[in-house]
């Protein structure tokens, strides 16, 4: 009798402990953040069950906002358009700290060692570097060129060696900021890399930095394993002979779509996805698509490429099969598709449908929608697994 009572006692205790651990302990590896840009909110989501966990307000102007994660995947750093940098605790669903660090910003990066967060600014043009722990300013890098003008900074990424790499839109330059001594960044400048670099990316291995050029056909390539070789022009004149089409939304290069030895990139202005051979950086193929591509993203295994488009074709997503380089599906998820994010191993893709106030979740094998959640004018979707990827 005593034994049974004791046993019962323990069972209760175990149950209590289990319940407690459910309520208070969990990892963040399957969490993510959805930007709700119009109202200055973000929603924290859980990707395994596809549900919302918490909603945080007071983040300012989140148009074109983006996020990087601390390497413990607990904190998200939100870069707002209004120059706000906000550190969010995604476990507790709350703002840890928020600073207004510039007048007009366009994204950021977190350093290799996870200790520094850099923000690229339009006004005043330059990069500000903060401690990821306290959000205290540790370095300012004004993007000064020519006779003292400031350039807007775009395409800021982290690179191995605790470096940040970025492009100067107005100056046509690429800079490397070596942050090994965080208080005194060592800057290497590459000039005349081409007109109006509009975005930049780094390959997943951290070796190549590539800036897309708006002012001319082509891209600027910097080999970070051989920085002395300088910046090389690739895909030069890829649009030659064609009538230039106006661009209704700047393409993004984030999430460089690499599949095998090929990279898939948006053509500027053309209704085309370009296929690059990464051995010689020459154009290997071009795939006609529905509109001007904005995001060209590879499923994590590189088997499919998902593409969304600029206004007025922004109601559509196309899926390209990498082996055949053919479009295997044209989806019409809704009004104004802004962003797509794959789960870490790619069985699902989450799509923000801004004007229908929804985030739709698709199965990437069946290419069918599996579920959906409401969100207020959702734009960027960022999953915590980005924490461990170079350049994201």
């Amino acid at each position, binding site marked *: 009798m005593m034994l049974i009572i004791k046993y019962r006692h323990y069972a209760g205790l175990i149950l209590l402990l289990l319940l407690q651990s459910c309520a208070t302990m969990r990892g963040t590896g399957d969490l993510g953040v959805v930007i709700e*840009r119009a109202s200055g909110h973000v929603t924290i989501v859980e990707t395994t069950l596809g549900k919302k966990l918490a909603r945080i307000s007071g983040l300012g102007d989140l*148009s074109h906002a983006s996020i990087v994660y601390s390497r413990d995947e607990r904190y998200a750093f939100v870069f707002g*358009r209004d120059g706000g940098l906000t550190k969010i605790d995604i476990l507790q669903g709350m703002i840890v700290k928020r600073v207004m660090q510039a007048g007009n910003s*366009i994204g950021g990066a977190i350093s290799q060692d996870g200790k520094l967060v850099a923000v690229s600014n*339009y006004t005043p043009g330059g990069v500000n570097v903060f401690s990821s722990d306290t959000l205290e300013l540790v370095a300012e890098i004004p993007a000064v060129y020519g006779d003292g003008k400031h350039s807007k900074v775009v395409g800021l990424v982290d690179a191995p060696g605790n470096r940040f790499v970025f492009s100067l839109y107005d100056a046509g330059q690429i800079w490397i900021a070596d942050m090994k001594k965080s208080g005194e960044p060592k800057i290497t400048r590459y000039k005349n890399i081409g007109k109006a670099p509009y975005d930049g990316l780094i390959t997943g291995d951290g070796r190549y930095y590539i800036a897309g050029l708006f002012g001319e056909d082509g891209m600027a390539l910097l080999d970070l394993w051989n920085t002395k070789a300088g910046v090389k022009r690739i895909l030069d004149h890829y649009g030659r002979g064609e009538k230039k089409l*106006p661009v209704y*939304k700047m393409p993004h290069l984030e999430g460089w779509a690499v599949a095998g030895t090929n990279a898939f990139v948006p053509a500027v202005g053309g209704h085309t996805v370009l296929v690059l051979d990464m051995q010689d950086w020459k154009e290997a193929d071009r795939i006609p698509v529905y509109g001007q591509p904005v995001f060209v993203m590879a499923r994590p295994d590189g088997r499919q490429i998902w593409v969304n488009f600029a206004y007025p074709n922004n109601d559509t997503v196309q899926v390209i099969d990498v082996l055949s380089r053919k479009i295997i599906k044209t989806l019409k998820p809704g009004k*104004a598709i802004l962003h797509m994010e794959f789960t870490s191993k790619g069985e699902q893709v989450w799509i923000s449908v*801004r004007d229908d106030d929804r985030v739709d979740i698709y199965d990437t094998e069946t290419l069918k929608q599996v579920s959906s959640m409401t969100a207020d004018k959702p734009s960027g979707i960022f999953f915590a697994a980005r924490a461990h990827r170079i350049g994201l």
Partner: protein
Amino acid sequence: MNKIKINSNEHTKRNLIFITLLFLLFSSNILAVEITVERQSDLLHLLKHDCGSCHGMTLKGGLGPSLLPADLSAKPVSALQHIILEGVPETPMPPWKQMLTQSEVRWLVMQLQQGINDVDN
């Protein structure tokens, strides 16, 4: 005196007619700009979210320049209209004439110059 008075009355009448005609002429110009409430809301939505991708959702500028009244109100309507319809060569500003009519663009320019109250759009 009476005659003169009549004359002056006739004058006033003529002036009135002239002014009315002028007004009609002018307002017919404005009437050409008449845009349905629904379309106005579409246009503001486009402005905020799609123009906003370069000019900022609050129109204070981004890759493209600020579109706030302080920066636009002193500029001639026709020049701004031309920029939107035709785009600006050598810059990312595309021509919108295939998507927007002249009167829609004129209406948008007038909204921009006055300043747009934050429309929940």
